[in-house]
């Protein structure tokens, strides 16, 4: 049961979406609404989603956030969070993001799962995810918290659509049966310099565990992942700040590369 009223949820959704659309830094919303709970936080996120859909935006996928143990420990939380991806977030391999449209973007190397069967929690496990997966492909997420200096708590970040803002997809698609998802390596380079390396297990021990957790979290609201869903699993590497003029390339073991620019 949430503690906020419907008008409060709507007001906070408008506040956070305006911050996104107008590149405004705001303070974390739990400062003014300390009694809000996790259900309220997700209600705000789903209200932002409803606002976008009502304006004609399509929701093209979902993402998991805070999926590494290091990040969860840093935040003092035991659970990751999720967010949605709107059509205008998407960038192709080699594409550009206008830095001025964002506040203080960072990039993360991820993988995306595309499903061919629905996943409905609770009780979804890694095997269910692997069976329901059509293919896996590389993805790079751009995150941009609307909170000043990325200072937030878990409830505030959930309400802020888990800092989602843009994402690049590219590289090569592959069947899960042909990949060693736990050990798959990624190398992130910015302006030609290696800045981060990691492997799939950095995400909850196995990338498919992240998709399973998403399906189970969605089931708490009676939602599911329909067949054809695009799901980004969360960061394999630390998030790295990018500046105007930067270009990046992320190289994936056996999956090719994803590159892009901030202009």
């Amino acid at each position: 049961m949430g503690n906020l009223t419907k008008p409060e949820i709507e007001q906070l959704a408008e506040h956070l979406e305006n911050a996104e659309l107008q590149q405004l830094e705001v303070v974390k919303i739990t400062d003014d609404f300390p009694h809000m709970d996790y259900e309220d936080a997700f209600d705000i996120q789903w209200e932002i989603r409803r606002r976008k859909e009502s304006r004609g935006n399509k929701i093209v996928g979902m993402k998991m956030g805070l999926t590494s143990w290091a990040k969860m420990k840093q935040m003092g939380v035991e659970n990751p969070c999720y967010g949605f991806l709107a059509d205008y977030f998407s960038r192709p391999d080699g594409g550009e993001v206008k830095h001025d449209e964002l506040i203080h973007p960072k990039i993360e190397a991820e993988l995306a799962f595309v499903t061919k069967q629905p996943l409905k929690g609770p009780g979804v496990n890694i095997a269910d995810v692997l069976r329901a997966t059509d293919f896996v492909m590389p993805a790079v997420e751009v995150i941009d918290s609307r909170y000043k200096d990325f200072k937030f708590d878990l409830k505030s970040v959930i309400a802020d659509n888990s800092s989602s803002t843009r994402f690049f997809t590219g590289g090569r698609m592959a069947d899960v049966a042909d990949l060693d998802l736990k050990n798959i390596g990624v190398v992130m380079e910015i302006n030609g310099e290696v800045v981060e390396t990691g492997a799939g297990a950095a995400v909850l021990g196995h990338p498919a565990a992240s998709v399973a957790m998403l399906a189970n979290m969605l089931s708490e609201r009676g939602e599911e992942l329909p067949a054809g869903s695009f799901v980004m699993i969360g960061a394999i590497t630390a998030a790295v700040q990018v500046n105007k003029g930067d270009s990046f390339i992320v190289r994936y073991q056996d999956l090719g590369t994803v590159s892009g620019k901030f202009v």
Partner: protein
Amino acid sequence: MNKDSIEQCADVLYGAIKSQSTVKPLTETHPDISIDDAYSISLRIVEKRVADGERIVGKKIGVTSKAVMNMLKVGQPDFGFLTDKMVYSQGQDMPISEQLIQARAEGELAFILKKDLCGPGITSADVLAATDYVMPCIEVVDSRIEDWRIKIEDTVADNASCGLLLLGDSAVDPREVDMSTCGMVVEKNGAIISTGAGAAVMGSPVNAVAWLANTLGEYGIALKAGEVILSGSMVPLEPVQAGDHLRVSIGGVGSASVRFV
């Protein structure tokens, strides 16, 4: 440093290895020590080990990651020598409590050579052509310098802080794996503690081996067919003690696991 000081430092460090004790940093007791002096000390220790019956079976590269280079304020790696006494294989326990002082584990690729490599002029293509196969490897580094208070000259003189190593469960042809993007996962006592990829080592472990061949060429030393070459850690160092279990897996290569006793 003069020859006598080098000999004296070699005796002190070799004594520390044998007695499992630590000494003060050479950079404090001998502030005039240069990198060349440090390598001279390291070479003298190897000669002493060989004279005592150990056999050189390979070389190791250290200080390959940016983080460690920054810590030691250097722009390049270092190297040490591997003897038969240091090498363990998958399935064996590693007796760090009776052999090492302040053990730290790392994960890397071991290159097994089928041709000699002698610099200068060794390229990454030469390294690939000379590599018989690569194996997953756990290296346990150790420092004979108290509390790991090392500067680059200290670790160079101390055989690049070499301790013991364990070769894993598979050997893979270098043409089967992209050594720059291959991922690494390290689990300690069942928990994942770090991940990385080959590019953390000078862009690729292959580059590290080429660097070693070219650098050793300056000292007239070759990497020899049949030798084991440790290319440097893809992940941060992890302190370990008797009772710990460590597992390192490398995408497309295999894994190495060990129980420390």
